[in-house]
């Protein structure tokens, strides 16, 4: 006769252990108050994918990752993740309410450049793109030390200065677009907080890499300023740049916008060292000052980033999606359970119990994974993966039960049927689940974005299906089958199987 698929004792142990582990884990998760880490499409929040504008090395991209992480954390939002996926950087901040404000800071390259101001230019209403190198400013419009004639005096301002008109030569030249804004080129850029004022700037003489730290503060008259500290290498560099531009305007540019264009030491007659610290004042609001400080502290990115896609989800719409996803899943599950009970009767109850064990274990695992950085967050794609896996999980039972019917039709006793049936069903379940797992692993490795989350949860539930089939379904059905051949409880099982032409 067919060998048995395990001793009675070991099967009871396996069954009891599986049930204890599943519900124990669920109870532990619930008592710890853990829940799944919700994705942004369910919790609301923001997600953005950037790619480097120019080819970047792996080291560059890792630096980008670090800087973006610091920047997001610097904003004081929690649960943010910054990941590299291939050549792309993926930023996701679930649960953040004012997502667009966060996006404004995270998204910028924060390339901080110190450029000399050549002259002011007028912007005509109708402009065309200027191709090639910009022509030099006319000599009378040049903001040279000689033209400006900065003189320290005892006035309230502390100095006097000649006013220089904008150079009309550039009246029809559009300001430099981000793609053309290179540190080595002359550019025309707008200045923060002064509408319609544009400066023609020379090539950059220093970058934000020389700054070690910056803080936004209010000075004695309540104006927002940024105080900064330079690095050990940056300090002498800044001194030399500042000395070269003594009594001239030096523009501090952040991502194509001049943050401030101060005159270097206008109240002094001769240049003195900054000693590694300085203060930038301008037309700052609290937000723009903090933004500049953040950019100066966490540094500029080694490459300029181009947004591929940015998404913000309102918390209300996210919550609606969560309710709809869970609602759909529960209704679907109820339909499936109703059907299996109607079709398999007593054996249908085994499916119900089996799904309860699977669900308890899955919830515990997903919640626990929510506390690690490893697992993708639980989003709509993940919920869909789980809903699809209901079919795969229940199918393992169907394969087994249909085999049982076959065995019973062949006139075998319940005792032998459950053993033989399991062995052939187990092979089928393994073969089919391997295909499912193969799909999940490949998708996880290759695909981008939401597809990965989907693949992760599909793969997880497939592994779960294999485990539950072996550790739960096998012992419970075989034990029922062995007991049932004599006892009356088996009558219901037999009724559930209703095994065709079989009779003794």
């Amino acid at each position, binding site marked *: *006769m067919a060998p048995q698929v395990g001793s009675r004792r070991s099967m009871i142990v396996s069954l009891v252990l599986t049930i204890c582990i599943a519900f124990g884990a669920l109870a532990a998760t619930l008592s710890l108050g853990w829940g799944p880490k919700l994705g942004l499409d369910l919790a609301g929040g923001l997600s953005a994918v950037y*790619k480097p504008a120019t080819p970047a090395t792996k080291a560059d991209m890792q630096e980008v990752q670090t800087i973006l992480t610091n920047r997001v954390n610097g904003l004081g939002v929690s649960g943010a993740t910054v990941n590299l996926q291939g050549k792309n950087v993926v930023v996701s901040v679930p649960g953040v309410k004012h997502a*667009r404000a966060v996006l*404004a800071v995270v998204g910028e390259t924060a390339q901080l450049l110190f450029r000399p101001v050549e002259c002011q230019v007028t912007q005509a209403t109708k402009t065309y793109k200027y191709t090639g190198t910009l022509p030099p400013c006319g000599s009378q419009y040049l903001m040279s030390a000689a033209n400006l004639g900065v003189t320290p005096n005892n006035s309230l301002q502390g100095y006097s200065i000649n006013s220089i008109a904008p150079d009309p030569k550039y009246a029809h030249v559009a300001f430099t677009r981000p793609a053309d804004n290179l540190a080595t080129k002359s550019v025309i850029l707008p200045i923060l907080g002064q509408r319609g004022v544009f400066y023609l700037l020379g090539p950059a003489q220093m970058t934000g890499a020389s700054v070690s730290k910056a803080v936004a503060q209010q000075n004695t008259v309540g104006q927002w300023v940024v105080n900064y500290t330079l690095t050990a290498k940056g300090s002498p560099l800044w001194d030399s740049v500042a000395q070269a531009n003594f009594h001239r305007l030096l523009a501090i540019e952040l991502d*194509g916008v001049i943050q401030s264009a101060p005159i270097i030491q206008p109240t002094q007659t001769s240049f003195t060292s900054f000693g590694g610290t300085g203060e930038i004042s301008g037309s700052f609001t609290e937000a723009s000052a903090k933004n500049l400080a953040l950019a100066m502290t966490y540094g500029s990115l080694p490459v300029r980033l181009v*947004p*591929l*896609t*940015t*998404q*913000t989800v*309102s*918390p*209300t*719409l996210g919550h*609606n999606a969560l309710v709809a*996803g869970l609602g*759909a899943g529960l*209704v*679907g599950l109820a*339909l499936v359970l109703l*059907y299996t009970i109607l079709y398999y009767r007593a054996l249908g109850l085994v499916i119900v119990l089996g799904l309860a064990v699977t669900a308890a274990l899955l919830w515990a695992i997903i919640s626990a994974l929510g506390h690690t950085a490893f697992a993708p967050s639980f989003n*709509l*794609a993940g919920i*869909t993966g789980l*809903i*699809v896996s209901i*079919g*795969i999980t*229940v*199918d393992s039972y*169907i394969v087994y039960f*249909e085999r049982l019917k*076959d*065995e019973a*039709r*062949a*006139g*075998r*006793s*319940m005792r032998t049927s459950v053993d033989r049936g399991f062995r*052939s069903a187990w092979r089928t379940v393994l*073969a*089919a689940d*391997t*295909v499912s797992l193969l*799909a999940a692993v*490949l998708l996880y490795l*290759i*695909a*981008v974005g*939401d*597809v990965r989350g*989907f693949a992760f949860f599909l793969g997880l539930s497939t592994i779960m299906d294999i485990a539950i089939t072996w550790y739960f379904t096998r012992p419970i059905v075989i034990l029922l089958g062995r007991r049932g051949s004599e006892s009356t409880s088996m009558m219901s099982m*037999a009724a559930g199987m*209703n*095994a*065709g*032409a079989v*009779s003794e």
Partner: protein
Amino acid sequence: MSDVTTSEKTPGPLARLYQGLTTIDFVGRRKTWFTISAIIIVLGLGSLAIRGFNLGIDFKGGSSWTVLAPHSSVSSMTSAVERAGLTNPTVEKLGSSTYQVTDDINNLPTAQQALVTNKVVNAMAKEAGLPPYQVSTSNVGPTWGGQVTSKALEALIVFFIAVVAYISIRFEPKMALAAFIAMVHDLLVTVGVFSIFAFQITPDTVIAILTILGYSLYDTVVVFDRVRDNTNTVLKSGEMSYGEMVNLSMNQTLARSINTSLVAIMPVFSVLVVGAYILGATTLQSYGVALFVGLLSGAYSSIFIASPLLAWMKEREPRYQELAIRSAKRAEHRTLTPAAAAMMTSDGSSPRPNRVSASSLTGRSSSSAPIQARARKQKRR
């Protein structure tokens, strides 16, 4: 064990399925099945050639804004966003009270894009009477869709290769080929249906299609597993052609195939009806539609495409050609019920042949004797 069946009465189709008494000729009528599929696929591809796809912004680039506004209307929302600076907006009402505005602003400079996006956010929030953060936004650059598509295609190709290799090793190459063709069938049907009904293609649709392919394959593998089993038992008795054996396997797994498909489709149907239409989560719609169409096609292709195709390919092999000729020489066409086959391969307790003939429903009274004979023959081996 007591006899609880009603086998003395003539069972209806459902009872026959339940009791394993079906004798549907899946293999013999393959031309019918292949024609049905061919018509659907040709219609779909024709629509694809003429109308193409209704691509979402994730593939062609663009921006969209979504807000929950129970008291608004499409016309007032349109004028609100046009005042905010959109030149050619598409405004749709999704579900019961969700409005989605779509437009392509990728040709504007980056700074301008952010400005327009914020203006539209504020306009829509005002229209809905909500704070601006309640407006969902999505901006997709022109190159993102290309990346999503190429990555999905890459995954698809690697998946195809891995699956064909796996089935070739685990089962056999011809099964791999049949399963592969069934999978391509499902892909073409789903894609065609999406084009015919102009359903929007989003990355969620791509996920759903990948799922379908995995599921269709999973379904096919279960059927082929049974075919392989029968190759080692029923086929060795030498009295059945490969096609007849496949037919038997199909009938044997029919209850399982139908149950599994129902069990898989029920939750997906729930996603579509409860999630997307009743509860109004529009993102679930993309999943629901693709999964629903694909699962139907996948269930159909495992039964009506993959298996008849396998039988057709295998019967061209010399060793099975011989079997087919031998089988054809016999006057009667053999369509065994799963219940009868179970008895035939039984090596345990004694079957009751009179029961089999009474319930096999083929109407061929002579079928009881050979079944019993074969059963004995096999027992001797």
